[in-house]
C-alpha cells in the first residue's frame, strides 16, 4: 500500500531530516511510528500524506509512483486516506458537525444523505452534545475527538494519526484506540505516530518504526 524507497528529505541546503528511509506499510497493517520528540515522526507522516515531496528516493502509494501523480490523481488518493493532525486543524468557522462532515461534503455528497452517520459517529466519540459548538470553545480533548471523527467518517483505506491520544484521558484513549483497532479489523491500514510507550506496550502485535537521527528502524510486532 505504501512503499518508501531510499527516501530522503532536506530543507534547502541543511542536513537531511530523513535519510535513506526504506519501509513498507502493508494493507490492513497496524504500525506505530515512535521516537523522541523532534526525531521526524510528523515529517514521516507528512511524506506519507504526500504533503511533502522527498528530495531523494521514491514513494509509492496505492501502487502509484507519487512523483508521477497529477493533481486530480493526488486528490483521488487523498480521499482514501484519513489523517489526524497533531494540531487538529479543525476549521474554526465551522461547527463540530460541519468539521466532521467536511470530507463528505467536499466530494459532493448531499447533507441529508450523511447527516445520520455523522451524528452517530459524533455521539460515539462523545461529542453528541457539542455538535453545534465551534472549535474555539472546545477543549483540547474534544478537538482531538472531532479531528479523529473527521478522519474516520470516510472509512479510509489508510489512516495516519499524529499523537491521536495526546490530549485525552486514559479511558477515552483506550476507547479511541479500540476504534482504531476495529477499523484495522475491518480492513484499514493504521499508522500512528506516538511517543507514548504505554500505548506501544498495549498493542504488542503492532509493527514499530522507530525514528531516530533521520533513520528508521523496523520492528515487527509479536504474533497476536
Amino acid at each position, binding site marked *: 500500500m505504501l512503499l518508501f524507497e531510499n527516501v530522503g528529505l532536506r530543507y534547502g541546503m541543511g542536513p537531511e531530516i530523513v535519510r535513506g528511509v526504506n519501509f513498507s506499510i502493508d494493507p490492513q497493517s497496524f504500525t506505530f511510528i515512535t521516537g523522541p520528540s523532534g526525531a521526524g515522526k510528523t515529517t514521516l507522516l507528512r511524506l506519507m500524506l504526500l504533503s*511533502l*515531496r522527498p528530495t531523494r528516493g521514491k514513494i509509492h502509494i496505492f501502487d502509484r509512483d507519487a512523483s508521477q501523480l497529477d493533481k486530480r490523481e493526488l*486528490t483521488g488518493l487523498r480521499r482514501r486516506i484519513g489523517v489526524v493532525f497533531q494540531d487538529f*486543524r479543525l476549521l474554526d468557522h*465551522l461547527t463540530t458537525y460541519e468539521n466532521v462532515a*467536511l470530507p463528505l*461534503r*467536499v466530494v459532493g455528497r448531499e447533507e441529508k444523505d450523511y447527516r445520520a452517520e455523522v451524528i452517530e459517529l459524533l455521539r460515539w466519540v462523545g461529542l453528541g452534545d457539542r455538535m453545534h459548538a465551534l472549535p474555539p470553545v472546545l477543549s483540547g480533548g474534544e478537538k482531538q475527538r472531532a479531528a479523529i471523527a473527521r478522519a474516520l467518517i470516510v472509512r479510509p483505506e489508510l489512516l495516519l494519526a499524529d499523537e491521536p491520544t495526546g490530549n485525552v484521558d486514559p479511558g477515552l484513549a483506550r476507547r479511541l484506540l479500540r476504534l482504531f483497532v476495529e477499523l484495522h479489523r475491518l480492513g484499514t491500514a493504521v499508522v500512528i505516530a506516538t511517543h507514548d510507550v504505554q500505548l506501544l506496550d498495549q498493542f504488542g502485535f503492532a509493527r514499530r518504526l522507530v525514528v531516530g537521527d533521520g533513520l528508521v528502524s523496523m520492528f515487527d510486532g509479536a504474533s497476536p
Partner: protein
Amino acid sequence: MPPNNVVVPARHAPLIPRDSLAGNALVAVIAILTFLACLTAGGAMLTSDAAHAWRSEVLSEVTIQIKPKSGVDVQAVVDKAVAAASHAPGVEKVHAYSTLESEKLLAPWLGAGLDLSLLPVPRLIVVALSDQSPDALARLRQVLQQAAPEASLDDHRTWARRIGAMANAIVGLALVVFILTIVAMATAIGFATRGAMAGVREIIDVLHFVGASDAFIASEFQRHFRRLGLKGALFGGLSAIAFFAAISFLSGAWSRSPGGNEIAAMFGSFSLSAGGYLALLLVGAGVTLLTGYVSRTIVFRYLSELL
C-alpha cells in the same frame, strides 16, 4: 432520521469564511470602475448617435452657392437655379435665402446693422433631398450646370466625412479607455483573490487533505467573488444609468431654454436610446461574469503551486 433531541441546522456554512475575504473595499473598486466603464460606453454611444444624426441631417440637404460677379445678374441666376432644382428628380424642397436672410446668417460673426451691400456675400439656395443617392445628386448637378453654370453645388460630403472621422476617433478613444478600465478591474480582482487565498492558506490545506479537488475549492472562491462582483456591478451600473437618465432629463429642460435649440443642434440630445441602456446593463452583467472568471483563474493558478 437523526436521533431524538438532536436538531441539526440545515445551513451549509461557506467553507471559506466570508469575513476573511476582500469585501466592501473590492465592491467599492468594482462599483467605481463599472461606473467609469459605463460612462465611457454611454459617452461613446451618445457621440456616435449624435454624429450619425448630424451626418444624416447634413446629407439630407445640398447647398447651391451663387457668388457675386461683375456683369452677372445674381438674382436672375438665383431664379434660374431655383427653377432648375425644383424640377430635378429627388428634390423635396428648394429655399433661396434672400439678401436679408443671408445678412442675418453673417450677423453672429459680423454683428447686426452692418451694411453688407458692398461685400461680395454669396447667395445661398438650400435644397432638401428626397433621394440622396449618387445618381440623383449627379442629375441635380447636371441640371444646374445646364441652367445656371455660374452656380456651384456643395453636397456637404466633405463635412460629413470630417464629422464621421471625428466621431470615430472619439469612439475609438472611448473604446481604449473602456478596455483599460476593464483591465484595471481584472487586475484589482486578481490582487484581491491572491490576497484572500494567502489569508486562508491553512483552510485550503485542510480542504486538500480531506480530499477537496482544486475545482471544488475554486468554485467556493468563485461563488464569493462573483457575488461581490454582482454587488459592485449593480451599484456602478445603476449609478451610471441614473446619471444618463438625469442628463437626458436636464438636456430636455435645456432644449426648452433660450439657445437650447443651438445646443441640441451642436451636441445632440444627450439621451441614450433603449439600446444604449441595455448596453449598460450588459456591461454590468459582463463585469459580474468577469469577476467570477478572473477569481477562478487566479485560484487555479495559486492552487497549482501547492502540493
